[in-house]
């Protein structure tokens, strides 16, 4: 578990970073932010980057602020930044609850929000949040910058549409309207393990009925996804156990779960059924 040899750059600015990436990106260069996924995979020699471009000293990537109703999260903002409420209202404590499911305390001190999006692990909590809440990211390269919707960024397990020379500089997370209810439920074998499934649910209640429902499932398919069938089971119905159970059933039904030696399709469906109604109950609470 010793990594193979690699070169190391530590640029001081985004401009310098994209310059280096233009050079080394096409030749197996990789960006190093928190390193909580990349470094272990290098130790296992599952990844053998020729060059690491360490962005941790780029000050302009450390920003975290609200701009035009969105939370803007720089590439070096750690998971631990969310241990406390980062915005007023419902979303702040909600993001804190989600963040506590990410790995363990030391991992959260190093790992980053944007790094999770760039890694695109199917079991990433932040990828689920990004897809559910309609986030986008900014990708910078020597060729310029572009904005990518989270649903266009994450296209499969560990697969994104970022180009080899691009640096994901920030994520932009639209903050839900104040009356929005948010709920999250996850199941993992032990505290801190990768989720076997997780569900983020949000909705508003208009005249006693659910409106604008969002049910997004992570950890169960190769990427997080909103489940339209579950949302349809909610919209227009009164919130409550019966509605939530129907949504859970619809989500489980609509799912095309991943299967592995320890997790069957049937089990993941059961989990999604349970977690969908739990996320909705938590949103209602």
């Amino acid at each position, binding site marked *: *578990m010793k990594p193979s040899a690699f070169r190391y750059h530590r640029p001081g600015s985004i401009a310098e970073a994209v310059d280096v990436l233009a050079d080394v990106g096409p030749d197996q260069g990789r960006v190093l932010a928190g390193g909580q996924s990349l470094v272990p995979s290098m130790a296992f020699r599952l990844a053998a980057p020729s060059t690491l471009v360490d962005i941790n000293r780029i000050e302009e990537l450390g920003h975290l602020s609200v701009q035009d109703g969105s939370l803007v999260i720089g590439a070096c903002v750690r998971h631990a930044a969310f241990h406390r409420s980062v915005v007023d209202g419902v979303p702040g404590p909600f993001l804190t609850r989600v963040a506590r499911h990410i790995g363990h305390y030391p991992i959260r001190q190093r790992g980053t929000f944007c790094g999770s999006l760039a890694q695109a692990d199917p079991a990433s909590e932040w990828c689920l949040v990004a897809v559910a809440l309609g986030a986008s990211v900014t990708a910078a390269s020597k060729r310029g910058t572009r904005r990518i919707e989270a649903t266009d960024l994450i296209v499969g397990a560990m697969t994104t549409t970022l180009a080899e020379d691009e640096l994901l500089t920030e994520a932009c997370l639209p903050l839900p309207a104040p009356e929005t209810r948010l709920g999250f439920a996850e*199941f993992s074998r032990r505290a*801190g393990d990768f989720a076997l499934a997780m569900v983020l649910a949000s909705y508003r209640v208009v005249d006693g009925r659910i409106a604008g429902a969002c049910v997004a499932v992570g950890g169960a398919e190769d990427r997080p996804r909103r489940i339209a069938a579950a949302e349809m089971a909610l919209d227009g119905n009164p919130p409550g156990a019966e509605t939530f159970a129907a949504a859970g059933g619809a989500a489980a039904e609509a799912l095309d779960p991943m299967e592995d*030696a320890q997790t069957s399709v*049937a089990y993941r469906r059961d989990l999604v059924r349970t977690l969908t109604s*739990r996320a909705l109950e938590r949103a209602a609470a």
Partner: protein
Amino acid sequence: MPEGKVLGKPVTRLEDQPLVTGRGRYVGDINFPHQLHMRIARSVHAHAEIRSIDTSRARALPGVFAVWTSDDIPEVGPVDFRADRASEVLKPYRQPVLARGRVRYVGDPVVAIFAEDAYVAEDAAELVDIDYSPLRIIVSADEDPGEFEPGRTTEAAFLTHTFGDVDGAFAKAHKVIELDLHTGRHSGVPLETRGAIGRYDAATDILELHGAAKVLHRNRDTLVNMLGCNPDQLHVHESHVGGGFGIRGELYPEDVLVLVAAKRLGRPVKWIEDRYEHLMCANQGREQHHLARVAVDKDGRILAMEDKIFHDQGGYVRTHGYNVANRTMCMLTGLYDVPAFRAVTHYRLTNKTPCATYRAPGRFESTFVRERLVDAVAAELGLDPVEIRRRNLIRPEQMPYKLEFDEANVENLEFDSGDYPLLFKKALDMFGWNTLQEELKRRRAAGEMIGAGMGLFLEEGGRGPSDGARIAVDSRGGVEVVTGGASLGQGFETAMAQICAEALGVDYRKIRVIHGQTDRIPYGIGAHATRATVLTGGAVHVTALAVRAKALDMASELLQLPVDSLEIVDGTVRQRSNPRGPTITLGDIAKRLAPGSKVLGGRQPGLWAEEFFNPKDTVFPYGVHLAVVKVDPGTGGVTVERFMVAYDVGRAVNPAMVEGQLVGGCLQGLGGALYEEFIYDDQGQPLAATLADYLLPTLGEAPDIEVLITEDAPSPLNPLGIKSAGEGGINGVGAAIAGAIGDAIGRPGAIRRMPVTPQRLRDILRADGR
């Protein structure tokens, strides 16, 4: 037992100062000038013929010093058995140091690389090209045996243990209950992985092995045979050890390789196992399939037990031979009075990591089977699980209780002492079993899926044949206790110091305990199968008494007082009836006993002694595990709300250390019951070779463990009455958790397989339409 001054007290451990201040010295901390680093290129196939090996690219890498295949070490034989020397039948199944012709599991060592640093060595390992031709892969002991080598099948042995009239008992039974049970493959996973450093000193012609553990003298004896040298030419050294659990300290191919390489290459050779290797290569255990049945009368009394076992040994037979299979069978009836018994084991090799002993080997498995059977009988007959156990426990007046097997080659057992019903009662009372039942009823009525279970178990420890100790007092009163024991972190030094202090009359903190150094003492039992405190402790006790006798003899002459009027307190001899009268320190006595001393008289010089302790038989501690679990029906997740272990250890040398052993064992047991499993796909590829996939319970999953240590049945077989404490904590955990889950879901017999993963539990609930 009389109350001791230090023996039996929860005194502070002597070994912790360096460990908690970062000054410990583990094998990774040891380095020698000019050392080379070894890396092993391992098989990626579970079963294949090696067509060819091309090491030229690895050899060409700068920094690589040598690259070996099995052809480079034709003189080195397979890793030999130790304990029972096993049978001739098993010898062909031993593991070569580097694979010869065939690989038999993913991780099988094929090529050894020696390089200037560990990074280069790992780079070079990736450059080795091995051409394989795949062979039939066997991933389960349930499969039909295949060919191990021409003329030899993968069923290496068929073993039988029998007593009583089994067929007659089943014929007249009121009920016969059969269960199909599986114990999952798991193992001890010490925080410190394995490591070995070989060093040859040509000036003295001494070969050293550093990083050894557990059974140093026995490993030395095995190595001496394998390498063809004499014991005085091979010194085996233990450093600090970060966990043993049975698997660490056994002899593995890498230990042999560093020694052969150090001698041949003329430079020290260091190997540190990485975690990935550890989870593919170090001994695994526990994987058995049991077809078990029990015959009972109408009152639930057991008339006979029968078990057909398929034991998954993995790719080779390692140092223990078929010890685990035998321990499974001979302890299967446990602490119940069973008139007739038959067990057979199909001891089969598979194409997975080889297996050997893991803490409570064979007992964790057989307790699960036995207690599942008893729970099933209770459910079938509508009896209370407590009552059925009471009816079947061996009674105190039956002690010593003999198990005499029909087979001539099977060792008979004699349970030395015990009051099993008493401990059972104490455990239930402390746990509040009866009031708990009311609480569980209420919570179930409120919709919770909650239940309680139990595992009653018998342990074995203190197996002989013998161990010795040498104790010397220096001229300043310092005491050195030289043992052939070993410390795996269990508090060996403290326990030995307490025993010596009690017998000799000195402060235990002034005693230095030597262990794990084969150049300091010619024999040593090591630390395995919970025998260190019984065997080495017994030796330290008798040796300390001999030193004491010699000191008092000298003191009696010097103080002009009769021997039997003297006592030793804090290293000073004084008159018992006159503590303020004349005194002499042990240091001064040692000076008067120096060679050439005018007062020496006819005595042997020096204040020291060397004695041996030879126990006549093994000791049998016993215990009870109780658990309360809550099941989440929607996810299949299990939360252990309460867990208790009650254990009669005969006598606790240090109750705090006993408690540590028990709590650690319980948590480890929860791993095997709920989390840990070495799974493989149908091609024999290991799917749990990282700590993200092999799930050790963490503090987050750990309940507070309630502990009851009793000393109601001291062993009559050793002077201190000790019965050992190392393995009871883990023994009945799987049984208790399985019973509790069955109770929680209202299906007492439903849990047939460990670990009970959330998915397996969901499958059971789903099949019930829940």
